[in-house]
């Protein structure tokens, strides 16, 4: 996975490099500061792990050094701190960035096969096996 991430990073200079020490501090103060209330922080953390960093290669905003991920972490923490529920924050982000931003695909016309196909698979396999085994040993 690193291999691919690194190769892609090389191929696409637009990918922002990781921010290291000594660089300027992001203007989003809550990007890397935990909320004082542990319950709110846990909610924010759980949500951040399910939101996609839009400028990275399949990382969540909780797992990314990219500036945009920092801004989004700030948004999530400040909205949760202001009393919003995680699902409201998610809905707000989905409205802005589309379904692509959330790693939790909802259940709608575009995503139903994700849940239906595994079910179908297990049903077909079950029927086939049942027919075979049902006829008994030997």
């Amino acid at each position, binding site marked *: *996975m*690193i*291999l*691919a*991430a*690194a*190769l*892609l*990073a*090389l*191929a*696409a200079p637009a990918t922002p*490099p*990781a*921010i*290291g*020490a*000594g*660089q300027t*501090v*992001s203007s989003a103060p809550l990007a*890397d*500061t*935990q909320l004082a209330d542990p319950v709110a922080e846990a909610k924010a*953390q759980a949500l951040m*792990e*399910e939101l*996609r960093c839009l400028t990275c*290669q*399949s*990382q*969540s905003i*909780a*797992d*990314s*050094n990219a500036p945009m991920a920092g801004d989004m972490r700030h948004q999530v923490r400040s909205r949760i701190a202001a009393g919003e529920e995680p699902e409201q924050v998610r809905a707000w982000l989905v409205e802005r960035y*589309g*379904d*692509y*931003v*959330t*790693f*939790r*695909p909802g259940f709608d016309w*575009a*995503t139903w*096969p*994700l849940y239906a*196909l*595994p079910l179908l*698979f*297990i049903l077909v*396999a*079950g029927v086939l*096996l049942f027919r*075979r*085994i049902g006829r*008994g*040993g*030997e």
Partner: protein
Amino acid sequence: MIAEIGLAALWLAAGLCLLQFIAGAIGARGDEQGPVSALVRPAAIVQALLLVVSFVCLLWVFAVTDLSVALVAANSHADKPLVYRISGAWGNHEGSMLLWVTILGLCSALIASLERRMDARFVKTALAAQGFVALGFFAFLLLSSNPFARLNPPAEFGAGLNPLLQDIGLALHPPTLYVGYVGLSVAFSFVVAGLVTRQAGPELARAMRPWVLAAWISLTLGIAAGSYWAYYELGWGGWWFWDPVENASLMPWLAATALLHSIGVLAARDALRTWTIMLGVVAFSMSMVGTFLVRSGILTSVHAFAVDPERGAFILGLLTIYIGGAFALFALRAGALAEGKRFVALSREGALVFNNVMLSAILAVVLLGTLYPLLSEALGTRVSIGPPYYNPVTAVFAVPMLLVLAVGPLLRWRRDRISRIAAPLVLVGVVLAASVIAVVAFSGAGVLPTIGLALAVTLAVASWLPLMGRNPRRVPLALWGSMLAHFGVAVSLAGMASESAFSTERLVAVRSGDTVEVGPFTATLGAVEPVAGPNWTALEARIAIAGEGVDTVLRPQSRTFTDPPQNTSEAALLTRWNGQLYAILGDAAGEGRWQLRLWWKPFVTLIWYGGVLIALGGLLALLGHLRSGVRRARIGEAIAQRRADRESEAAA
């Protein structure tokens, strides 16, 4: 000169591969004794030697940083330490494809020189199939990914290697993984040969088993190594991201795990013939799909695919030929295979079939989740599929599978009664109930981690139950292997559940001298000072860790590389028997403060120890099966000898 030797060796190897295919195909038609078909074994062996020469040439041009080779100029730099210059040879598209083809060639040579269980016609057919697969990848390498292309004039400096790859992980992870990926080609070729020569019985299963086991061990180790590498190198403390590239390595593993178990049924009971054949095709197909996904650039987006469509279309074409061809052959011949033996649901076969269906369902989920974003993007919407999808949906199949695993190995072949295994069944039930209650009462973990922990405890006990009523000194090596591997699954699962349930994270901005608490430890930031390495400079923090009898200093770094210019975080890890403390140095936060990110991850190391145990179990099983294979061959020879003696006596 070296690069030209490498390229020449590669072309010669391709020529021999063609010969291997033709000679093998003639042998497959039944002309085993003909002069051409006798060439198949030597062709395979010399082909492999030439590929090794070619690969060594690539290592050489990387080791000496020959900047007149385009690949070196684009991916290496003279200032890198030697081990990273060498491992950089496969840290790029062309080099990794050469590694792929080299291992494929080595597999051919190993079949040609080692396979003695099956008859000559079978081996020749398998080598023809192996050669046919290799030809496509030779074409890909030579026509669209030549690793030895020259650069004229030579570059002045190399562009360097991505710093994330400058790690011992690059030296170990890709070769191990590739041995596993490509090792599955043997299963593919054997299955094709089995279909062509109409041999799909226990002999085929016994002949395939060592090869599949070896590939599977390697795949297991490669995935575990990759996971640990991502964990410490990416600096975010995650060990599995359900990233498409990770999924690409998981899918062949799932298929190979299912294949191993169905091979066990076929070898012991001559049941599940067509299913085993199909899994053999699926397993290597997954290796090729993984290669396609990773190498075509399609993963970032279908639009990235369009940037370099030639390579992607090439691999897609190969995929269609091989997978389509194998399934067409399967469809033609599967009906002609005699159906295997039957069994009832409550039997060892029944449990293994359940395991197979569940593993295949998980494979289907992972494949669907990996490809779905591409499909939906092609249809105009972009969706992301991540842990919130994969974790629960795979758990739906994994949990019943692990429950059956707890008792399945206790069942007898063909037909069994519940009353016979009542005692261990009750024991497993009690352990499961007790561990669920204990986890719920004492930890307050989420639903999935709770199930994971309880299952891990149950499985850790249940995996040794087959020992009951046996004399341990008389337990076959292969059974020790299977128990150890199943125990490894429990250990790994315990690590995953514990990491997700009990990790604590601290994100702080502190001055030198400030102390923060993380888990059972206190961390005190000391000086943050510049240090220099061979091709990087870094800021290094000294963090004093105390508590639980520990008194040590962690030194996480924030490194700045020059070629190419990039920053990386080097995590510092404190490994204890009961977990890991993970420290990252972040940005300067103003007013002399530094961002620190600290995690205490209880028992996280069990994830990878479990992986190693699984691989060790595979190794024991491999040795056990090889030994009993030799013994069986010896007995067979002795019987044949005795019969010959008796016949000659009778004749006299």
